[in-house]
């Protein structure tokens, strides 16, 4: 960094030479108003609000107005941010934008957190001088997530720039000309991009607002919020959920420079409504008469349930515990402590367990290091092996979209175009892309930016990876019998990775193949051997897959065996619907063999309905918890509101069960910190867990961090219909956060940062005030700690054997899993908006295969895998290789089928 000294209103400041002037001034703490500029979308200079005055030199007293967002900082520069002409001009810009703005703040969803409101106040424009009639527009119906109100538009172009250029969406654009610009779709219809929800935060006013929030609307200042972590995939995006009246109202992005930055995917933003679902288990349940399970579960008192558990746990054979990759470390560890490490099962089926172990081994043995989502964006050549990233880890896909821009940025740099000058960068670079290679089972929503795609079976994908490794380093085993095209492709990929400054290999558990993960590790290892530091990003399915993997334990089938063999007769199931992870028949047999089934979960599901004892578990919104994401980053998520009814954190239930079971050597667990301490003590890999977040007794100047903003309203009246006496705020002994509006309202440690607000900045843009420099890390460091670091200088070793080439089997087809961002994940799928976007279960066939079977799109076929028979409608997927059939995963009430596997597909019979 070259330091430049600039004078702002005659005071010297040190900034980075060439930096964007607006961003530099904001970073220095100046309040310069802006609209079209965004730290992630950079400068286009269209709104003209960010004017400052530039003086040629000390003698120049007149100066001239420039747009700070379009100006590069240079040493010796003299500017004024409060020159009267500048102030007059900024106020004019707001006046122009207000000519047609409807001034409907009182009924606008954005009111109170509106960047336009903030900027209007900041510039001091307040008197309407025009006599013109306002122009009006028709609004569009944009689907379940986004509400459209075009009259509020101030034409900053941010929405289309984000949607199209940043997120790669196509179905939103600007039309019209002069002062009649329209931002919308060609016609009414659901916004297709899975990143559409970010429009809510990108739009500086109320044109695009959160439709799910609208259905149970609450102003920002009335929301109780907490720092949370998304539970809907393995990426671990940071979120800020907001609650009022015991209902979760919405999710906003929580900035973490290393993880999700400014953006979430729609699954993460709109998947929250399962928390409010009618299907929530709110009370403890008991099944009367335990022998044949014919009776229905009945709500019961917590005491009665615990008492009966006491009997079961004290008298039964030792119970086993089935944990869950979607439950927190605390919950899983508590279960493990209840049943003992040797009787703890991770809750993952054998196949998945093996994949997860492999991922952990790869990430801990090196040589490649797992990269954060931000680092992904810096990689200039990427190979994706097997993973349908947009569907399994959508936020990672968004980062990959940014990574291909590396070449553009390099070209721009060569032309001396500052990288923040967005239109100029795109112009000189002609959007040249760095190479992204996609080897996946079928087409993905990243194909449009890829340098080359390869669709094949998991083994073929693995073989391609091996071939790339061999091309990179001849010491890696060669792949025999590949076609010349595969050869050329492998050489081309190897060449691109080698030529890159920061190559990246992406893979994961998605296609269910160990060979694919090994192949990805091989490519990374080979790169290492030829002197390249390769990044590795391995996708895992759930929010705590790696966490439960690190705790360790047997797989699901082993748990079944334990019970069916009679070695155990009691089972405690933690936040896990076994029917989504194992063959229904096996699960049924398992339940039949178990004398006592105790389930702890959020929602009534099939497993819950098989339980004899059911305990209501708090969701992420009501429980603190620690999760480890795919990168290997441990992150603490805090409850947003106190659980109601009998809902409690799973670990608390389990702790109570330990006490009920008469355990003697109980550690003293009163807060999640205590549980984490126990985890750190007993699990080596999780030693750093103690530092994941400030302890529960942390205070700033003796104060807790309030979850409610200082403008939180109605506290004295919220429950007046019950009692006119204001209830005492719920206590939170578990963390430094408080369920209250009293406390420290400044900048707390970032792990505890539960909203962005600064004087004059009520919108999400207030975030600027919390970053060390705008768009950079949070001041004081981003939350979370990496727990998976490979040992330094581990040498790569190559396996001996390479997977065989794919040979089709007569009469059989390889069934592979296909994922959907909307629908494949269990909890979010319960949210109405996500459910609306989710397709129904289907079987994907290539058109040729469909023809040979004699079926068309939409017609039913019969799939037989092992002894499961499914009847499903056909979806034609042209990119599927012949002989390969895709089975949608996790959609609707589709029973679990373990794939990849060989199966038979035939036309459905009349009765099917």
């Amino acid at each position, binding site marked *: 960094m070259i330091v430049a000294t600039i004078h702002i209103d005659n005071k010297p400041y040190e900034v980075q030479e060439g930096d964007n002037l607006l961003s530099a001034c904001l970073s220095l703490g100046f309040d310069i108003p802006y609209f079209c500029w965004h730290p992630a979308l950079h400068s286009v200079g269209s709104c003209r609000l960010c004017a400052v005055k530039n003086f040629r030199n000390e003698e120049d007293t007149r100066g001239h107005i420039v747009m700070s967002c379009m100006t590069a900082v240079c040493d010796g520069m003299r500017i004024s941010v409060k020159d009267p002409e500048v102030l007059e001009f900024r106020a004019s810009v707001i006046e122009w934008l207000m000519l047609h703005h409807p001034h409907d703040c009182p009924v606008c969803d954005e009111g109170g957190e509106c960047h336009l409101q903030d900027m209007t106040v900041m510039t001091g424009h307040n008197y309407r001088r025009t006599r013109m009639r306002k122009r009006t527009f028709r609004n569009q119906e944009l689907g379940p997530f986004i509400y459209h109100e075009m009259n509020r538009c101030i034409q900053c172009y941010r929405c289309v720039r984000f949607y199209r250029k940043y997120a790669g969406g196509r*179905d939103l654009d*600007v039309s019209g000309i002069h002062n009649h610009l329209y931002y*919308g779709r*060609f016609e009414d219809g659901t916004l297709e991009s899975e990143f559409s929800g970010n429009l809510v935060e990108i739009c500086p006013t109320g044109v695009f607002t959160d439709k799910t929030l609208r259905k149970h609307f609450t102003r920002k200042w009335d929301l109780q919020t907490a720092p949370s972590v998304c539970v809907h995939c393995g990426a671990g995006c940071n979120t800020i959920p907001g609650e009022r009246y015991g209902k979760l109202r919405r999710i906003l992005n929580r900035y973490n420079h290393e993880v999700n930055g400014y953006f979430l995917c729609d699954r993460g933003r709109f998947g929250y409504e399962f928390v409010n679902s009618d299907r929530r288990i709110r009370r403890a349940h008991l099944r009367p008469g335990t022998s044949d399970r014919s009776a229905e579960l009945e709500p019961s008192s917590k005491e009665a349930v615990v008492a009966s558990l006491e009997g079961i746990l004290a008298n039964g054979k030792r119970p086993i515990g089935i944990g869950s990759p979607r439950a927190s470390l605390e919950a899983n560890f508590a279960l493990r402590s209840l049943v003992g490490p040797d009787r703890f099962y991770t809750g993952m089926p054998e196949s998945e367990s093996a994949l997860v172990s492999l991922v952990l081994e790869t990430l801990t043995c090196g040589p490649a290091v797992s990269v954060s989502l931000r680092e992904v964006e810096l990689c200039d050549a990427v190979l994706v092996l097997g993973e349908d990233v947009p569907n399994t880890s959508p936020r990672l896909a968004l980062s990959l979209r940014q990574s291909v821009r590396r070449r553009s940025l390099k070209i721009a740099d060569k032309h001396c175009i500052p990288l923040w000058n967005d239109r100029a960068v795109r112009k000189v670079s002609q959007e040249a892309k760095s190479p992204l290679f996609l080897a996946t089972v079928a087409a993905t929503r990243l194909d449009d930016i890829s340098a080359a795609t390869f669709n094949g079976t998991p083994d073929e994908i693995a073989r391609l990876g091996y071939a790339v490794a061999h091309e990179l380093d001849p010491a890696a085993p060669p792949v025999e019998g590949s076609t010349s095209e595969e050869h050329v492709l492998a050489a081309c990929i190897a060449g691109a990775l080698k030529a890159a400054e920061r190559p990246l290999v992406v893979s994961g558990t998605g296609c269910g193949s160990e060979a694919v993960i090994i192949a990805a590790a091989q490519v990374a290892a080979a790169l290492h051997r030829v002197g390249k530091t390769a990044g590795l990003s391995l996708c895992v399915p759930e929010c705590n897959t790696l966490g439960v993997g690190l705790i360790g334990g047997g797989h699901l089938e082993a748990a079944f065996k334990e019970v069916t063999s009679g070695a155990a007769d009691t089972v405690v199931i933690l936040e896990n619907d076994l029917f989504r992870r194992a063959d229904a028949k096996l699960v049924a047999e398992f339940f039949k063999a178990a004398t006592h089934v105790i389930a702890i979960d959020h929602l009534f599901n099939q497993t819950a309905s098989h339980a004899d004892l059911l305990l209501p578990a708090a969701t992420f919104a009501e429980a603190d918890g620690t999760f480890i994401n795919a990168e290997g980053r441990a992150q603490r998520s805090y409850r947003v509101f106190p659980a109601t009814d009998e809902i409690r954190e799973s670990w608390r239930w389990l702790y109570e069960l330990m006490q009920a079971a008469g355990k003697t050597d109980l550690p003293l667990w009163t807060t999640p910190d205590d549980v984490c301490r126990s985890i750190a003590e007993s699990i080596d890999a999780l030693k750093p867990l103690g530092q994941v977040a400030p302890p529960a007794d942390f205070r700033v100047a003796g104060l807790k961090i309030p979850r409610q903003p200082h403008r939180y309203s109605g506290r004295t009246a919220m429950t007046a219909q019950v009692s006119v006496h204001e209830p005492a705020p719920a206590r939170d002994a578990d963390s430094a956060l408080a369920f209250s509006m009293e406390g420290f309202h400044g900048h707390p440690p970032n792990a505890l940062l539960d909203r962005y607000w600064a004087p004059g900045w009520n919108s999400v843009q207030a975030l600027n005030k919390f970053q060390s420099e705008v768009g950079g890390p949070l001041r004081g460091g981003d939350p979370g700690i990496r727990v998976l670091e490979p040992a330094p200088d581990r040498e790569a070793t190559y396996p001996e054997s390479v997977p065989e080439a794919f040979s089709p089997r007569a009469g059989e087809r390889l069934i592979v899993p296909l994922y959907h961002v909307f629908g494949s994940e269990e909890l979010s799928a319960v949210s109405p908006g996500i459910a609306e976007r989710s397709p129904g279960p289907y079987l994907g066939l290539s058109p040729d295969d469909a023809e040979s079977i004699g079926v068309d799109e939409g017609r039913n076929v019969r799939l037989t895998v092992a002894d499961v028979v499914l009847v499903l409608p056909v979806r034609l997927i042209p990119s599927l290789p012949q002989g390969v059939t895709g089975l949608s995963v996790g959609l609707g009430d589709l029973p679990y089928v373990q794939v990849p596997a060989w199966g038979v597909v035939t036309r459905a019979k009349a009765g099917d």
Partner: protein
Amino acid sequence: MLSDLVKQEIRSRVDRDHPEAVAVEALHIVRNHYGWISDEMLREVAGLLDVDPAELDGAATFYNHLYRKPVGRHVILVCDSVSCWIMGYESLVAHLTRRLGIGMGETTADGRFTLLPIQCLGSCHTAPALMIDADLHEELDEQKLDAILAQYP
């Protein structure tokens, strides 16, 4: 539905290096053939060029001559820029609207004429001027205009 001929013409204009560049030209072709560009036609062109209709509409609604609404058999483009305005634009338009019974931007009931304003036609020295379809008419007055209109059945 675009005719095969139109589709053929659009395809023939596609520059291999820059397929997206043909967007405006393709809409031009459609407009030349059908007089205007309906939603349906726009959607079809978008399909041909593999762009989203929203993006194509962005271009279609930007330019003057890519009509997104139906027009009459003949389009009268009256120059409303400054020199013509000085030289009698207002009375010319008054005469036209009286004769045709329509206002600016409208189409006669019989579908014969659509009346639209246009920027300076570069006939400032021969003002006032207007174009009917592809023909420029200059130094107009009311009698001359009546005779000219008669040429467009």
